[in-house]
């Protein structure tokens, strides 16, 4: 059969994906742009509002509060998660005995079902009898300094950051794979030149795995901007205590499906898109300076 006759078959095999993508992704995206310009209380026709939803966004204190909560979470959770994942990967890369065992153990938390993980951490973080605070008390921390975690508006976000670090094994696996790709001869020649372990890490390891670091940074950033499920489960969707865990996606969800203001929620979604887009663009721009693609 001739080569040029085969395109309909190719299309036919791709059709499920094309139809799915067009109807379940591209159409909703375009539709949400239209709805964001309307008042759409789910039943009845959307009523055209022009830019009124976007004007309201700018002055809505809860939008800004939830953006701040999300930014706070991203600023701490993403770098800390990368740092912990990298540390674990570096340790495991030391050719320790039982590598497969440790790798599995550290990776395991990131595949624990989310609800189960939340139920578990809800108890670990319990201020009065939780494992974490009992440990802090055992270490001699005075009662007044023991954090209130999810019961205290200043500690609720740090509590979720701590919880997110439990899942840093996901990044660790990627780093570990990247580390094992770094050519050994680079380390050997550096050692001959008298480079210390620190020098080798800073001048060889990090540049060589920087594409993976960039990838996890971008994915982490996007993931935390859409941070939702843990906050929803641990606070039953309320954002308690006193809106300290009202993240942007949670706010958006409640606007759409508790208040049924689908038009306004669509506008919120577009704002989130712009924020993620700008943040990602910023990271990519910066990365030109720091990321090294050796291939």
């Amino acid at each position, binding site marked *: 059969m001739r080569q040029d006759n085969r395109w*309909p*078959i190719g299309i*036919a095999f791709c059709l499920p994906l094309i139809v799915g993508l067009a109807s379940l992704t591209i159409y909703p995206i375009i539709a949400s742009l239209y709805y964001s310009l309307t008042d759409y*209380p*789910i*039943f*009845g026709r959307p009523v055209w509002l022009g830019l009124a939803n976007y004007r309201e966004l700018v002055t809505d204190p809860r939008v800004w509060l939830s953006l701040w909560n999300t930014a706070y979470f991203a600023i701490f959770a993403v770098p800390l998660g990368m740092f912990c994942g990298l540390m674990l990967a570096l340790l495991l890369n030391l050719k320790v005995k039982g590598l497969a065992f440790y790798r599995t153990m550290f990776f395991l938390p990131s595949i624990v079902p989310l609800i189960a993980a939340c*139920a578990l951490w*809800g*108890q670990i973080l*319990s*201020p*009065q*009898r*939780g494992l974490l605070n009992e440990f802090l008390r055992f270490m001699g921390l005075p*009662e007044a300094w023991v954090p*209130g975690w*999810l*019961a*205290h*508006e200043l500690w609720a976000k740090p509590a979720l950051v701590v919880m997110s670090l439990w899942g840093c094994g996901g990044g660790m696996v990627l780093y570990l794979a990247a580390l094992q790709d770094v050519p050994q001869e680079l380390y050997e020649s550096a050692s001959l030149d008298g480079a210390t372990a620190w020098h080798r890490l800073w001048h060889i390891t990090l540049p060589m795995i920087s594409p993976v670091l960039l990838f996890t940074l971008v994915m982490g950033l996007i993931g935390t901007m859409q941070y939702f499920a843990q906050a929803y489960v641990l606070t039953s*969707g*309320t954002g*308690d*205590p*006193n*809106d300290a865990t009202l993240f942007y996606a949670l706010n958006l969800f*409640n606007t759409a*499906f*508790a*208040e*049924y203001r689908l038009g306004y929620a669509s506008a919120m979604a577009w704002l989130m898109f712009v924020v993620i887009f700008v943040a990602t663009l910023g990271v990519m721009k910066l990365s030109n300076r720091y990321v090294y693609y050796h291939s």
Partner: protein
Amino acid sequence: MQLRFIGAMLIAAAVAAGGCRKAPPAAKKTVITFWQPFAGDVKEAMEKLRVEFERTHPGIELNMSYAANNLNASQKLFLAIAGGAPPDVTMVDGQQLAEWAARGALTDITDYVNTSGLTGNDFWLPRWKESMFAGRVYALPWGADPNFALLWSKKAFREAGLDPDRPPTTIQELDEYSRKLTKFDNRGRLIQLGIVPWEWLGDNSMFTWGYAFGGDFYEPPPPGSKTLIGKVTANHPKNVEALKWIASYSRNYDVRKIRALQTSVFGMATNNPFFVGIEAMRLFHVTELKWLHMYAPTLEYGVGVIPAPPDGEHPTGWIGGWSMAVPRGAKASAEAFEFIRWMCTSDEGTIALGKAMNQFPAYKKSPFFDTVKDDPDLKVFYEILKNSKHVRTLMPVQGYLMELLKRGVNKVLYEDADPQQVLDEITVQTQKRLEHVLRRVELQMAADGRIGEAR
């Protein structure tokens, strides 16, 4: 050739899909789909009801399935209605009814109700009012649960030197008892509380204590009025007083420390803070008595009415409960209404509600109430039910008000915000939203030629 192969595959797929379809039932029955939000043993009771209904109504097949339904999660139903594929009958929380009816999510069943001969006098009045919107009936009330009764632990009372058979009756007494019942351990941590006025839900608490103090939240338009729009009164002076009182507990005991103690137990049914002894007094919903007997069988407790200030409402209470309605887009049929009527007014339907769900029927004449009179606990709840004048509100923006009250109470508890100012803001915002929603409804009614028909 490949194209023919693909064609054959498509045909095979179509045949396979077609083969999955169920064979049509032999006898011709009317099928009613019914979405209900219950799981666990309540679902089992619903299953028994289904069997009983089908036995007594041989021409009807009841197709029952689960759909989560609360103020934050009715997505399945709403999306089904918007998508044009709703069930024939759905449960609806009483306080949602006006909102759903105003949004056009429900079908008017006034004619069916009139034909059946049922009137408002057959039901506990607040729940009947909660079944109507703009003068039309949109549901029949199934349950009528009185909120709330005060439960107190006799052991904790004895330990604190209080008379275990005498609950507090005024707010002043409640404060005094709370002070005596609050305990700290040697590290300065709270280990026992008197009462927590905001419990877990700041929004419900505001209604409970607002009504107890003699406040109100909404003044509907007077009968015969041309407009549907009433007046939001969330900043009623008595509500402000109630919120100030609620705030005093955060000032005295710190909401964070109380929350830390409350979250030290996990699971409201098994480890209710009252069952495990960290709250000496607590407001109870009638359904929770079952858990009390199950998980704290040895706890010695008393049941009484909510304390209120001398110029407040005593006994006080508001009624909640499930209603049954026909979603918009479903054809209201005689069969669907018969199912609703049977559930809400038959002996079987109302007794099952009482026995399996531990709630009170909205239907006053249910024989279930004969069994309540001699039960030492339930009879207190029954008294509260008989005396209750309120539901939360009859506004189509009730969910919004609840949300704002929750935020407002939080602001007062955590940020020490001024109760008057907080409630003033809530009133303005709710009134604005109310007018927005009802103007839409009024325009629609004018377009349908139903102007002036309201109330």
